[in-house]
């Protein structure tokens, strides 16, 4: 069980006189849950996502971002720690956060020429495994070198060649192929350069593929549904549902639209306005929003305030 | 070579010239300093590769080309209300303080031998002054040269939040036996948030050697755009340069030329990024025909402090004849890594498959070629805000195309 916890998060753009964007965000996402974070443009949704992942453009002025990991979350890492752990993510580099199981699907993924998908993903996976070792070693205390037996998820790549801290090429190819089939992606993607020349939809599919391979504890999906046609929307939704069901990932889904929520039903819906979460509810709230629009929320909120 | 000019031009010539124009002492001093400096100054930079000099300016017989006291011209200077369009002499009379402050502030008179010569000997010019927050369109200056040599000077000052679009053109009138020399210096200063589009159309006759240097400075959020069209002259060295000194300043330098017979064009477009958030776009397109030759140098120079620079340069030359020659050198000098810069250059002929396609639609070869050449200029013509400049250049191109064998 993993829980991502945002407490009273305040943030501004990291430059002199930078604009304040977040004004006290509280949010909790645990393994296996699906949350939808909705709100009009400029309300602070994407900023929230970027701060969770550690984007350098924003400065947190108050509040905290915590990640609680129950010990079952790191049993497969071969460490002997009896207690659950809590990490203050704001102290960690983006790659360390990724290693602990935070995944951000970008609204606008970077295009990187010359680096093939397969090379990139295998490097990322191995970097994650290696970084986890270091992170947990610091916390291990009286370390016991004894390896734990496999107790993880059936499809976990972490069962792999952990001795070298590396997933081998052949093994990885197979893993990649499986995940690509799941998302109905063409095999040739593996040999293409990372996002270079991908269509908008292909990029989004690729983000979900990466989540499937890295098996995060908590995935933040920033407008994963924009620019997708209906077929691809279904593929992407399947990918997200599989993440929850097979990996137990907690999902924070940022979206403008009800559309994807028809395929990935949220357990919780949060509505953001001017840097705060102003309304929370279940899937019905999203439907209400679809009917009445954000003005309804605005009126509702500012009247009561 | 400089001694040649010294033979016919001396201090007394310059003093006489200045006196006839009724100039103040400081201006005479500036002229005399420039004259003095001639001896030590080099000719404008030209590109040299192993065994080849792209343009030879030192080889001209300046002594016989330069006749400073015989200058004759016709000049039209018009502009709308709210903006001052004055002859240089009027401007010195009416705004001496302004002229004294601005003269030589963009182009150092002693930049090179030819700028110094021009400063020492210019007898005519135009000053365009646009006060704060004034928007001016259609400022037009037309110079018709009637003598062996003519040295011209132009100053454009656009104050804060003003804008101006102007067109300056050079032509030759009465015939003169033998070769001629035209020299023009243009200084453009765009103040904070000001916009200047300076267009020029050079159509001197083909016995004229032509040297022009146009430099602009853009202050904070200011923009200086140049449109440099060259059709005439025997040989032209025409340099257009913008100094982006203000934060957020911009420039667009558009060049178009059409060379034929034995014309030689040496065209330079240069931009100096010297502050943050500046943008430059350099676009030049030229056609060369017969035995003509074009030389192009483009420079995008990004200084150490020019953070967040965007800089683009494109140059395309179309060769209509096998005897023509096109030389090009687009350069990038980048000293700040927070830069997005690119340049491209192409040289080629009219596309054969395009010709075939048009032929298959029953368009005769000659018409097809003319259409493609005219089409080639479209991307640069689209940038021109003054209709007259666009129309006239288009007409010049059409005339040249029609006169082809």
């Amino acid at each position: 069980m993993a829980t991502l916890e945002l407490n009273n998060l305040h943030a501004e753009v990291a430059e002199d006189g930078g604009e304040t964007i977040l004004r006290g965000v509280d949010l909790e996402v645990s393994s296996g849950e699906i949350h939808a974070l909705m709100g009009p443009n400029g309300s602070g949704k994407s900023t929230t996502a970027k701060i969770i992942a550690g984007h350098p453009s924003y400065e947190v002025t108050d509040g905290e971002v915590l990640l609680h990991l129950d010990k079952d979350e790191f049993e497969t890492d071969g460490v002997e720690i009896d207690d659950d752990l809590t990490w203050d993510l704001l102290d960690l580099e983006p790659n360390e956060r990724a290693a602990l199981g935070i995944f951000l699907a970008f609204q606008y993924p970077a295009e990187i020429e010359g680096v093939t998908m397969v090379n990139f993903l295998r490097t990322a996976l191995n970097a994650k495994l290696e970084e986890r070792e270091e992170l947990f070693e610091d916390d291990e205390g009286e370390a016991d070198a004894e390896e734990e037996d496999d107790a993880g998820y059936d499809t976990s790549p972490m069962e792999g060649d952990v001795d070298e801290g590396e997933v081998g090429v052949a093994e990885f190819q197979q893993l990649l192929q499986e995940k690509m089939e799941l998302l109905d992606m063409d095999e040739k993607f593996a040999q293409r350069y990372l996002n270079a020349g991908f269509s908008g939809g292909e990029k989004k599919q690729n983000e979900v593929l990466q989540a499937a391979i890295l098996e995060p504890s908590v995935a933040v999906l920033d407008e994963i549904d924009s620019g997708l046609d209906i077929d691809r929307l279904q593929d992407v939704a399947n990918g997200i549902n599989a993440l929850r069901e097979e990996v137990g990932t907690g999902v924070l889904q940022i979206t403008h639209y009800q559309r994807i929520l028809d395929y990935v039903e949220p357990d919780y819906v949060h509505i953001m306005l001017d840097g705060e979460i102003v309304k929370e509810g279940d899937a019905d709230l999203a439907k209400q929003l679809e009917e009445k629009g954000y003005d309804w929320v605005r009126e509702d909120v500012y009247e009561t305030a | 070579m400089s001694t040649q000019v010294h033979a016919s031009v001396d201090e007394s010539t310059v003093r006489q010239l200045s006196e006839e124009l009724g100039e103040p002492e400081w201006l005479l001093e500036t002229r005399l300093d420039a004259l003095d400096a001639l001896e030590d100054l080099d000719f404008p930079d030209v590109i040299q590769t192993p065994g080849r000099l792209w343009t030879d300016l030192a080889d001209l017989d300046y002594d016989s080309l330069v006749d400073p006291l015989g200058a004759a011209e016709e000049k039209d200077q018009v502009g709308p209300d709210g903006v001052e369009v004055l002859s240089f002499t009027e401007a010195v009379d009416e705004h001496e303080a302004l002229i004294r402050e601005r003269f030589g502030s963009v182009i150092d008179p002693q930049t090179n031998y030819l700028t110094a010569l021009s400063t020492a000997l210019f007898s005519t010019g135009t000053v365009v002054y646009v006060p704060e927050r004034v928007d001016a369109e259609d400022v037009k200056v037309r110079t018709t040269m009637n003598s062996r040599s003519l040295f011209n000077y132009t100053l454009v000052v656009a104050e804060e939040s003003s804008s101006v679009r102007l067109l300056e053109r050079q032509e030759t009138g009465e015939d003169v036996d033998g070769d001629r020399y035209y020299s023009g210096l243009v200084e453009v200063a765009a103040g904070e948030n000001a916009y200047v589009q300076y267009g020029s159309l050079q159509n001197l006759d083909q016995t004229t050697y032509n040297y022009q240097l146009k430099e602009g400075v853009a202050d904070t959020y200011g923009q200086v755009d140049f449109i440099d069209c060259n059709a005439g002259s025997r040989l032209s060295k025409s340099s257009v340069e913008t100094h982006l000194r203000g934060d957020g300043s911009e420039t667009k330098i558009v060049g178009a030329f059409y060379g034929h017979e034995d014309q030689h064009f040496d065209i330079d477009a240069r931009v100096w990024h010297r502050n943050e958030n500046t943008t430059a776009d350099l676009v030049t397109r030229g056609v060369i025909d017969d035995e003509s030759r074009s030389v192009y140098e483009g420079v995008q120079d990004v200084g150490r402090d020019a953070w967040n620079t965007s800089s683009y340069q494109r140059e395309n030359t179309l060769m209509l004849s096998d005897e023509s020659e096109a030389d090009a050198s687009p350069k990038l000098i980048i000293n700040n890594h927070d830069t997005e810069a690119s340049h491209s250059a192409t040289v080629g002929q009219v596309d054969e498959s395009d010709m075939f396609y048009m032929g298959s639609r029953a368009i005769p070869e000659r018409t097809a070629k003319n259409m493609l050449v005219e089409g080639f200029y479209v991307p640069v013509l689209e940038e021109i805000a003054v209709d007259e400049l666009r129309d006239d250049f288009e007409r010049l191109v059409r005339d040249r195309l029609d006169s082809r064998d």
Partner: protein
Amino acid sequence: MSSDQDHLKETETEARFEFKKEESSAFEAEKGLTEETIRVISEDKDEPEWMLERRLRALKQFRQMPMPDDWPGAPDLSEVDVDEIVPYIRPDIETRGGAENWEDLPDEIQDTFDKLGIPEAEKNALSGVGAQYESEIVYQNMQEQWEEKGVIFCDMDQAVQEHEEILKEHFMTKNVPASDNKFAALHGAIWSGGSFVYVPENVTVQMPVQAYFRMNSDGMGQFEHTLIVAEENSEVHYIEGCSAPKYSEFNLHSGGVEVFVGEGAHVQYSTVQNWSKNTYNLNTKRAIVEKDGTMEWVSGSMGSKATMLYPSSVLKGPGATDNHITIAFAGENQNIDTGAKVYHNAPNTKSTIESKSISKDGGRTNYRGLVHIADGAENSSTSVECDALMFDNESTSDTMPYMEIQESKVDVAHEATVGKIGDEDVFYLQSRGLDDDDAKQMIVAGFIEPITEELPIEYAVELNRLIELEMEGSLG
């Protein structure tokens, strides 16, 4: 204002004059590079009279020619003092070339060798430490195979003795004459060592011919001359130099490379150079390509204080082709000025130039290239692509191409871009678990990928590893 300038000019002139006086008095001293020095070298090598004459003529030209330092942005060569060279090249003076022992090498070089994982014996040979590395044996087997086909691969000194006719015709005559530039002239006067490769008609040499281990004694490898003659329809891939840094106390490397590509022949010349950071690397490399021949230049320039290197191809015969692939990497205090020159002198000739450069920590890279299409070279095409990546604001990246087009039925395209490593790209990779260094290295590897994919695999791996080493410590 002008009077101030005049004053400055005067003092400058005077200073220059003073400098000249000093220089010439040093020149007259015995240690200087004199005719006598050249005679001693030639005599020691037991060279024929014609070679001595060529050396002496080259020396004369060297003295007359100007330094190539007046080009825009050209590296500062004022520290190069050729008179210092004499002790390194005179066989009668006890040599000071290289370091005596491994331990005497600068730490950074030892470090690089260790990280490249090069075995001790090779380290000694490659780093210029005096020990002889028994490279001859490695090549014995291959050489037997080649000899059967009439392929010659030998030391240049040996070639002067044994293949005099070929050398007389091809050595610094129509390809790189000593008059080409000042350092070609110097090279012509004092050249020593290098390789001679001769491939007869219709012969394909399967294995790349490597001069990797040949630079193993003092002085060699600093003024080495490479002569490759590929006859009609032959094929050979020559690999020179090595990615390990080569250390010498004397700071000038001035090699000469001449390639003759016969009709329909195909020559690839690959080199990854990583000279120690005190070296001035000033080379002249040229190929003359006959009808339907193909010349490929692949170069990686990593080390040195300053490099000036512009491999050129003269496409002499119709249908001749040239490919250039270059990578330049400039770190702290390095000025890497490289490029390509191509002369299209016949119809249907084709050239492609692909250049990638990386600058960081105040280093400067410059692409300086010339493409000349002569009148009559119709249906020729050339395409030039230069991309530069800058790491920080102290560095400089310049691009200076020159195109001279005298023929209208051509297709000429040049493109260049300069960019930086994007923060968003780094963040994206970091969010997937790569640390900052790995993320940047991955982006750099991607950037040079189009070039490394053209290199033989072991070179590509080494080049990547070297670039990783160069970036180490400067990142993060």
